[in-house]
C-alpha cells in the first residue's frame, strides 16, 4: 500500500495498486490461470512416476540402472536443460520436428514454444520430464515399504492384480502420493528457472506464471511496490485455496490432521 522504489523514500499510495491489479492488469489474471494449469501437471507427473515406480520395483535385471536414468533429470541444472529443450522444440531445426518429419508424422513443422497454443503444453512436458524421476524415487520408497506378505495373502485370497493394487498398494501409498502432490504444488508456484530459460513467460504471456510475472514486475520493470501488492494478493489467494482444500478433504490437505 505504499508507493515504493528502492531509490525514493516511500509514500502512501492508498489502494491504487490494488485497483490497477483487479481492473487493469490482464497479465496478472493470465499468469494466475497459467499457474493453475501448470499445477495441474503434477497429477500427470505423479501418475507417470507411479507407473515407473511399479515397473522398477519389479525384480528385473538392471533396475538400478533404470532408476538412475530416470532420476538423473532432477539434479541436472535447469539452465543447461532449458536451452536443450528450447532446441528440441525448435520449429526449424529442432529434434522433435526432425523426427516427426522423417517419420512422415507431420507435413508442417510445429512451432512448439513459439506458438501461443503449443507453448504451455510444451513447457508442461519439459516440467514433467524434470520432476518425474524425483517423484518416482519417493513413490518407490513407499512401494518398498509395503510388507510383501500383505500382497501375498491377498493373492492367496484370489484378489486379481488390479484389485490388489487398488485395495492394498494404493491406500498404503497415499502418504507418499500426498508428499509428491505437495511438492508438485509448491513447484508450480516457485519453480522459476525452467520457464524463464525456455520461454521467459512468452510468447505473449502464454507461459507467464505468477513467479515469472512477479520477477518481471519487480526486477525488469522496477515496480517494487506493485510487486509487493501482487505478493499480498497471491498470499490471500493461497490462504483461501488452502482453507477450501482443507475443508473439502476433511482437514487432510497438507497432511494436516488426524488428531483434530
Amino acid at each position, binding site marked *: 500500500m505504499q508507493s515504493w522504489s528502492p531509490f525514493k523514500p516511500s509514500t502512501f499510495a492508498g489502494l491504487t495498486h490494488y485497483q490497477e491489479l483487479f481492473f487493469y492488469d490482464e497479465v496478472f489474471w493470465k499468469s494466475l490461470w497459467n499457474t493453475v494449469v501448470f499445477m495441474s501437471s503434477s497429477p500427470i507427473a505423479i501418475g507417470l512416476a507411479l507407473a*515407473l515406480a511399479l*515397473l522398477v520395483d*519389479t*525384480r*528385473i535385471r538392471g533396475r*538400478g540402472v*533404470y*532408476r*538412475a*536414468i*530416470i*532420476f*538423473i*533429470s*532432477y*539434479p*541436472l*541444472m535447469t*539452465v*543447461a*536443460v532449458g*536451452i*536443450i529443450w528450447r*532446441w528440441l522444440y525448435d520449429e*526449424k*531445426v529442432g529434434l522433435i520436428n*526432425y523426427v516427426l518429419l522423417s517419420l512422415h508424422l507431420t507435413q508442417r513443422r510445429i512451432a512448439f514454444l513459439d506458438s501461443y497454443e503449443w507453448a504451455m503444453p510444451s513447457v508442461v512436458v519439459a516440467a514433467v*520430464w524434470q520432476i518425474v524421476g524425483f517423484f518416482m*524415487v*519417493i513413490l*518407490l*520408497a*513407499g512401494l*518398498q*515399504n*509395503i510388507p510383501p506378505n500383505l500382497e501375498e495373502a491377498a493373492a492367496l485370497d484370489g484378489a486379481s492384480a488390479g484389485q490388489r493394487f487398488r485395495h492394498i498398494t494404493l491406500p498404503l*501409498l497415499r*502418504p*507418499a502420493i*500426498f*508428499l509428491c502432490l*505437495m511438492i508438485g504444488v509448491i513447484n508450480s*508456484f*516457485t519453480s*522459476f528457472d525452467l520457464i524463464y530459460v525456455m520461454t521467459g513467460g512468452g510468447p505473449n504471456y502464454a507461459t507467464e506464471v505468477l*513467479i515469472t510475472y*512477479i*520477477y518481471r514486475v519487480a526486477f525488469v520493470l522496477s515496480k*517494487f511496490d506493485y510487486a509487493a501488492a501482487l505478493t499480498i494478493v*497471491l*498470499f490471500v489467494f*493461497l*490462504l483461501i485455496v*488452502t482453507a477450501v482444500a*482443507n475443508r473439502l478433504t476433511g482437514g487432510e490437505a*497438507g*497432511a494436516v490432521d*488426524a*488428531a*483434530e
Partner: protein
Amino acid sequence: MRPSRAVAVHATLGAVSVVMLVPFYWVLKTSLTGENIFQYPPALLPRVMHPFYYVDVWYYIPFVRYVINSVIVSVIVVAANLVCNALAAYALTLRFRGKRAIVALLLSCMLIPFQATIIPAYLITKELHLLNSHLGLALPLCSTIVCIFVFKASFDAVPRSLIDAARIDGLAEWRIILHVMLPLSTSAVATTVILSFIWSWNSFLWPLIVIRNQEMQTLPLGLSTFLSYMENTTGALYAFCIMVLVPGVALFLLEQRRFIDGLTSGATKG
C-alpha cells in the same frame, strides 16, 4: 516373473529411458564437443570428442573452493532443518489455541515464491550481520515447511499411549522428542536430509544476492562464468553442469539402497 512379461517391462523401461536421456545425452555430448546444438540435421553422434572443456572449467573457477563452500552450507542447512523442523512439527502435534490458523498460514507461506520475499530476507540477514557468511547463505533454507509436515505426519503416527507413558515417567518435552519421537521417525529424518540437501546444493538466487566475496561463492554461482555474453562458451557451460551433477548422481548410485529405504518408512507412516 514370466519371460514374456520381463521383456515387456524391459521394452517399456527402455523406451522411457531413451526419452529421459535425450536431453541429458545432448548436454553430455555438447560438453565433450562444444558443437552448436542448433545444427541441422541434428548430429546424433559426436564427431570429435575431447575433455578440453572440463579442463577449462577446472581452471576458470576455483572449483574446489566452491565445492567446499557448497558442502559447508549444505551441512548447515541439513542440520538446521532436522532441528527446526522436528521441533516445529512436535509443537504442531500438541493441542493449542489458534493451531488451525497456524497450519493454514504455514501451508500458504509454503507457496510464496522466494523471488517475492528476497528483499526482506536480505534486509534481515543484513541486520543479523550475516551477509557474506556460510550461516547467512544457509539461513533462508534452514527450515522448510514441507519438511515440517513430513515430520508432523511421522510424529502423528506415534501411538499416543507411548507419549503419555513417557510423560507419566516424568520426561521433559525435549526428551520426548529426542528419545521417543525421533527414533520412531528415522524415515522422516532421511526424507528431510535428502530434500534439504538437494535444495541447498542447487540454490542459486540467494547466494547470488547475499555473497559479496569471491571466496564465499557456492558451486552453482560458478555458472555465470560460463554464460558469457562475449563469446560462445557453450561447451564449458555444459561441462560445468555435468561436473555439478556428478556428486549428486554418484551419491544416488552409491547410496541407492539406503536412499530408498530411508525414504520408505517415512512416507508410509505419514
